[in-house]
């Protein structure tokens, strides 16, 4: 049985349907992420799980028992808020002790567990500080520790890294994974940052306009997106309009106005005549100098339009003769030169038939 189950949850705010018929099952020990642009309903779902809001239709079950009508304080789950919501009139130790005091834990036990938790998040020396005396990262760790100290069945995290700068964010991502694996508590994480979701999660549900577009592991989401939205939202991708013109055991043959005919293998779930997009990740595109011999299923001549150097990689935009722009990402592994090509250079690009996928449009 799943630890947490959402059954056909719908939530309306006036005329707006913020969450539309969402069903989910989250397993014990999982790091589960709700990913989507702002306003997609992910935070609304989190608030309904926490008990701050109630669904208009559907049910939420924890260990198979409905949470309907159970007030937030009676739910064995805690939330880490985006603003951290540390109590400003209590010290770090006081904040950590709060959930234990509310649960009626004895003094000696509280002191022991606060000490334990402070050690876990490396804040032993900050026990007597007030929240305003802490840095952003430290506040974040206190909020996490406070959410975990009472050993909830589930920890809900609402964009907890949103307020941190990029470097600290990366550091906290590592901390989050370590903590989750160490305490073994199920995490439900809400974010709009796709990289964060990919890096942290066991499974991700990608949301748009109140619906779940796809729910899968990070690598499945990345390599086999369910539709254009998911493909475009996660990472960078080339999307080229195409139509299925033949289906054979070895693959599907597509026709595109700008790329001509191309083969996609293995055959995707589609029917003859389906329209949609040929989706190709930039790092699957190979670039070669004209005359260089390369074994590729698809080959096109083009010219480098721009080269964006970001250190470990360079992102090229290549204009094909048909006018189609293709993005290609190359790792800068060769010593010496920062990048192989400059804007204006004529090149040959290509990819293997397994490199891209076909995403047919929903009719």
């Amino acid at each position, binding site marked *: 049985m799943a630890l947490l189950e959402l059954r056909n949850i719908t939530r309306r705010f006036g005329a707006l349907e913020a969450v539309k018929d969402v069903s989910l099952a989250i397993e014990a020990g999982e790091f589960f992420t709700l990913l989507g642009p702002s306003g997609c309903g992910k935070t609304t779902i989190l608030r309904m799980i926490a008990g701050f809001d109630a669904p208009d239709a559907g049910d939420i079950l924890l260990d198979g028992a409905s949470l309907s009508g159970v007030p937030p304080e009676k739910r064995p789950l805690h939330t880490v808020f985006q603003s951290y919501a540390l109590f400003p*009139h209590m010290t770090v130790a006081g904040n950590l002790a709060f959930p234990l005091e509310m649960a009626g834990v004895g003094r000696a036990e509280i002191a022991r567990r606060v000490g334990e938790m402070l050690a876990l998040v490396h804040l032993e020396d900050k026990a007597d500080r007030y929240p305003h005396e802490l840095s952003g990262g430290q506040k974040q760790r206190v909020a996490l520790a406070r959410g975990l100290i009472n050993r909830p069945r589930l920890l809900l995290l609402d964009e907890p890294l949103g307020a941190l700068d990029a470097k600290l964010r990366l550091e906290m991502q590592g901390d989050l994974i370590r903590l989750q694996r160490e305490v073994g508590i199920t995490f439900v994480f809400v974010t709009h940052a796709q990289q964060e979701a990919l890096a942290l999660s066991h499974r991700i549900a990608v949301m748009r306009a109140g619906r779940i577009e796809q729910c899968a592991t990070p690598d499945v989401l990345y390599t086999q997106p369910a539709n254009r939205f998911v493909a475009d939202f996660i990472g960078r991708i080339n999307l080229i309009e195409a139509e299925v013109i033949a289906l054979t055991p070895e693959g599907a043959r597509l026709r595109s106005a700008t790329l001509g005919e191309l083969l996609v293998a293995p055959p995707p779930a589609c029917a003859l005549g389906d329209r949609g997009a040929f989706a190709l990740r930039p790092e699957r595109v190979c670039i070669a100098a004209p005359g260089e011999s390369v074994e590729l299923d698809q080959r096109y001549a083009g010219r480098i339009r721009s080269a964006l150097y970001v250190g470990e990689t360079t992102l090229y935009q290549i204009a094909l003769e048909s006018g189609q722009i293709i993005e290609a990402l190359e790792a800068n592994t060769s010593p010496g030169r920062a990048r192989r090509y400059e804007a204006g250079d004529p090149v040959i690009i290509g990819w293997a038939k397994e490199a891209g996928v076909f995403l047919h449009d929903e009719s």
Partner: protein
Amino acid sequence: MKPWLWAATLLVYAFLYVPLAIVALFSFNDSLLNAQWVGFTLDWYRKLFADEAMLTAAANSLFIALLSSSIATVLGAMAGIAMHRWRTRWLPLLVITPVAMPEILLGVSLLLFFRQVLDLTLGFFSILIAHITFSIGFVAIVVRARLAGMDESLFEAARDLGATPWQTFRHITLPLILPALTAGFLMSFTLSIDDFVITFFVAGVGVTTLPLQIYSMIKVAVSPEVNAVSTLLMALTATLIFFATRLAPELLKGQR
């Protein structure tokens, strides 16, 4: 700071404090007239503390101020929290209107209400109720302002971490609005202790407060005794403010 800014600042403070200083000074003046410094004396204070009517009025004023501001703080806090939680348009209007209402209007209407509608004998209770009435709005405004500046998720976090609504109020809301309650209480106290207009209408004949007593004395002649009682009032207010500011940093700790 530029010299002219210093001068302007000095001028403003002089305007505010010189009249008060003169009152205090002349309360120690050994002359019946407030015109000229003659010599130091404590006679006016001696006279004041022997004045039965004055002492009774002062005791009344203190008692009414203490009681009315305590009750107004509780009711005003409730109103402030309600205004914050249910953002209706009419609630703030209802609570704040008595604050903006001309005092004379409030006095007359309360008098009519007590006499014609409730048929209450004017005296201690009518003054108490009147003072509570005009104080609630002030407390409610400060409490609401305090809550408005607060992160809403603090209260949700408390519930989330296992606190019942009552425990959330007791452990989170109350400590966080304590500075507002203190400020509201002190405001109500000072409003009550120096209120003249409204009290004048609802006091009746039995009970007199300090401002009413001072007024009745001035009607006869301006006595330095009035200076003495004013100086004592000033000292009381200053002490209250001193304690309020001493308390505030502790209460405000960590709320930036």
